[in-house]
């Protein structure tokens, strides 16, 4: 499976990507994840103001066939959610990195260091299936 893994992002083993800009972390799912899921038809993410804990589930992505949990890459407060993607989940299939799900104001910067780099994520994708 060919996958697109931008070098400026961080990743989780649950196939989320993160973009860090100061305190703000933008979160989405990777190209690998969208390709594995197939047609994405439903996205559920928390409301603005919700408190996320690193490693805890914060929402779901559903394809026609399956339900997949989303796991928070970091701890913090949700400050924005992407209503466009909730209304048109197929946008994730078209552009996984352009279709962010939520923006979080992070609590603990050190959590970012525990995420995978692009190279590490590539390696993980190569060996995990």
């Amino acid at each position: 499976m060919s996958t697109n893994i931008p070098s400026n992002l961080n990743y989780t083993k649950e196939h989320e990507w993160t973009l860090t800009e100061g305190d703000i972390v933008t979160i989405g799912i990777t190209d690998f994840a969208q390709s594995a899921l197939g047609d994405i038809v439903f996205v559920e993410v928390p409301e603005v103001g919700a408190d996320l804990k690193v490693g805890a589930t914060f929402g779901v992505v559903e394809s026609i066939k399956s339900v997949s949990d989303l796991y928070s890459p970091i701890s913090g407060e949700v400050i924005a959610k992407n209503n466009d993607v909730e209304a048109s989940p197929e946008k994730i299939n078209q552009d996984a990195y352009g279709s962010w799900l939520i923006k979080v104001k992070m609590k603990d910067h050190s959590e970012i260091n525990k995420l995978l780099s692009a190279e590490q994520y590539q390696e993980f994708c190569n060996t995990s299936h």
Partner: protein
Amino acid sequence: MSELLRTNLYDEHVKLGGKIVPFAGWEMPVQYTSVKDEALAVRNSVGVFDVSHMGEFFIEGKDAEAFADYLVTNDILNAPTGKAVYSPLCRENGTVVDDLIVYKIAPERVMICVNASNIEKDFDWMKTKKTGFDCSFTNLSHVFSLLALQGPKALETLKSFVNELPDLEYYSVFETSIGSHPVILARTGYTGEDGFEIFGHHQTIKDLWKNLMAVGVTPCGLAARDVLRLEVCYPLYGHELNDEVNPYDAGLAWTVKPLKTKFIGKDILESKPAKYKLVKLILEKGIPREGYAVLNAKNEVIGQVTSGTMSVVLNKGICLARIQIDKAPTDEVFSIDIRNKAYPAQLVKKPFVTGGHK
């Protein structure tokens, strides 16, 4: 776990980029490109499924029709030769061993097509019931490959490949050939669309598959098949049907013919015992999945989703659900518990999608 089986078309599926998953003891393609595109190809044009994993039994001889009629709850004896009949196969206590199609191919020659997961269970069960019937009974599942060519363009697509193809009625069967190779052709399927199921020897079917690919027929996987059957509310064994329920529990009253003089389960099924009611529910928001709880207006659990998906035609969540008959609400206000939140669900009487079959 025993080793997974592969159909004769396995290499073709891999070449086409099919995503292979274990299913009923077989390695089968779940999808090739997109479940949605594959399902819509069947609704609007034509698609083909490799369903060679399914089982084919043959009953031949003087009592062939009588034996088939005795085994199943639907009426085989009164159906004319050339007809196909859908039926549950029940035990004496009325529970469902499997659901299947009986094909009356020729006088004294009957084929039964059964679910892949139940081939051995069905064959063993049926064999024990053959005493007193003058006919042979054989399992030829390993000899046949099977394609389901489905969609409004199925007839015109298939015409160019088979030697003779009359405009058969829906649910009928016909013996013809492809070149010099015999095939059994049935106007049946599991999508609600017009279409054919083509039973033939492995190489005949492999050649036909390749020819269908060459003329641009969309290869379709199990996921599309599941969406298509659910949109038209066809039951699936292991979901709506199982060893614990009877046909009345699964909305299949129309397939039980208590007036038949004898059939397995008659004594119990005559009284129409039903513990459950199978309902069709559609959601404005949320996707129901198998096992989710169905709630009444007071948020009490009254049943479970047996199959659920996102309809590709309606773009809404749809499901079949088994409701306990004594708890069926009279006001018909339902919701479904999706991740601890109650999503309203509307009861519908007719299938979610009207297939285009004749």
